[in-house]
């Protein structure tokens, strides 16, 4: 049984279905990512799991605790970072962290050292005495994440943790997520950045229009679409005639010369290397490098969801301002 179990989760607003029968499981110590464009249903799903919105589901459990019937008990082991940095503007960083700790019943002797430690860890030590409203976007997000970690939760929920914040803070946040995973924290995050999902998630679910279209590790997702096999050869020279000769010799291959003068052979079958190398050798062409070209996760996403990757890119630009 996973750390987080969700089965047949649904959410409708009026007669609009925002989440349509979603099921998944997150293992202990795993980073699981929901990747999808704006409006896909990521936040709606997350809010139901954390008990902020009423779910229709057969089952939602976190560490074996039924979220529907024992919401408060489940919330005690969750750390929650909403899509908006929502701490108290009037209070300084340190007081904000201590207040959040107190909500989880932590005593003064426990919460003050922990707050100091988190401020240091997130490089917000100097900002600890400044009011939250004076923070930059990146600092606000970091403090919101620190607040979610104050009670050392077993499961951390992050809703678009790096959307709309600066590159350096985003990098720190990703490093911190990987660091937490090492310590055994289970992490559920949503994002619309393909590279982010690819870089830090153990498993990814593509979500579109309220449904999980595909899920798995990056290699599994890559496997799930049929693709051409392609090999790129980096050579010391090439001739216009090479592609025609290669295509004539190796039936079913499509050969092109790229602008960088490398040569790409593509085929529906795997391409045996030795005969090709022999061909080059006979032509006195030196081959320095031969590597397989794999489709990117972006290609897989586009193919499986039917969503143009530019939709995600556009979100990203919007988020950057």
């Amino acid at each position, binding site marked *: 049984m996973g750390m987080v179990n969700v089965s047949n989760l649904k959410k409708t607003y009026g007669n609009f279905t925002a989440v349509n029968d979603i099921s998944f499981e997150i293992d202990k110590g795993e980073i699981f990512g929901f990747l999808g464009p704006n409006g896909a249903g990521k936040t709606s799903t997350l809010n139901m799991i*954390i*008990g*902020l*919105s*009423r779910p229709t589901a057969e089952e939602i459990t976190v560490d074996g605790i039924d979220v529907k019937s024992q919401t*408060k*008990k489940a*919330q*005690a082991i*969750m750390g*929650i970072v*909403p899509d*908006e940095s*929502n*701490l*108290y*503007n*009037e*209070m300084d960083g340190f007081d904000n962290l201590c*207040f*959040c700790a*107190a*909500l*989880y*019943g*932590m*005593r003064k002797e426990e919460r003050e050292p922990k707050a100091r430690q988190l401020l240091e860890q997130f490089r917000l030590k100097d900002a600890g005495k400044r009011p939250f409203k004076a923070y930059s976007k990146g600092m606000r997000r970091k403090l919101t994440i620190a607040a979610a970690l104050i009670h050392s939760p077993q499961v951390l929920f992050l809703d678009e943790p790096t959307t709309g914040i600066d590159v350096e803070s985003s990098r720190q946040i990703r490093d911190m997520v990987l660091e937490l995973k090492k310590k055994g924290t289970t992490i559920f995050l949503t994002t619309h950045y393909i590279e982010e999902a690819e870089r830090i998630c153990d498993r990814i679910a593509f979500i579109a229009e309220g449904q999980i279209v595909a899920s798995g590790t990056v290699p599994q997702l890559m496997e799930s679409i049929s693709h051409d096999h392609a090999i790129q050869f980096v050579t010391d020279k090439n001739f216009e005639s090479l592609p025609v000769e290669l295509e004539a010799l190796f039936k079913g291959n499509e050969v092109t010369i790229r602008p960088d003068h490398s040569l790409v052979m593509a085929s529906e079958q795997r391409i045996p290397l030795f005969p090709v190398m022999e061909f080059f050798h006979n032509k006195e062409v030196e081959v320095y490098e031969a590597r397989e070209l794999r489709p990117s996760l972006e290609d897989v996403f586009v193919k499986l969801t039917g969503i143009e990757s530019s939709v995600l890119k556009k979100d990203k630009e919007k988020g950057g301002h």
Partner: protein
Amino acid sequence: MKSWIAFWNILKKDIKNYYLKPPNISWGIIFPLSWTLMQLIRSPGRNILELLPGLISMSVLFGTTSMLAVTITFERSGRSFDRLLLAPISLNVMVLAKIAGTILFGIFNAFVPVIFASFFIDLSAIDWGLLLLAVLMIAITSSLTGLLIAVSAKQVFEAQTFSNFFRFPMLFLCGLFIPISSLPLFLRPVSFCLPLTYGTDILRGTIVGANILSPLLSSGMLLIFAVVLFFICRHNINEKWIL
């Protein structure tokens, strides 16, 4: 124990961030003071003692309802209120913690006209225990009314409008300045549906001995109002804020 830590810190935070802010403190003092002065100027012949119950009730009413409605709507719009909904504390503890600050603020407001009056008249005949009880009960029911308004309002502006919508009719219907016996007959039943009527009546009893109901009955009614309002608030929060 854990709930107690959460309760105490929510209360402490609200007091520090809202109630002890200079504008609110001065509002809490100036508002009751100016009402007291206004009443004195308007009817110089009237006894300060007779005005005192109305002034106390009003100070509490105005100090609590909009205060809670506005601060909660404010926290809701900034989404920081979600933290309370997501914390592992029961809704009861959360509601109690949120109203506790307002209740204290209301009690503080109530004593502004009392202290003011003490400079002019002898207040030694007052049953302070009963007065405090009445002030406390008015503060509790008004705070809960404020919370109820907060659950219905979406914006701070709306919360303010709603609280005025409740408060101004109350001024005329609760026997604050116009005795209930001089109200038109059809309005009198409405008066008895408002908690403030009972609170004011206790105050009248203890300050000038002019109550129309027994203090025990009034206290009982206030208690019933408080309990009912508490459960309505809890229910509405659950229904409306956990979507």
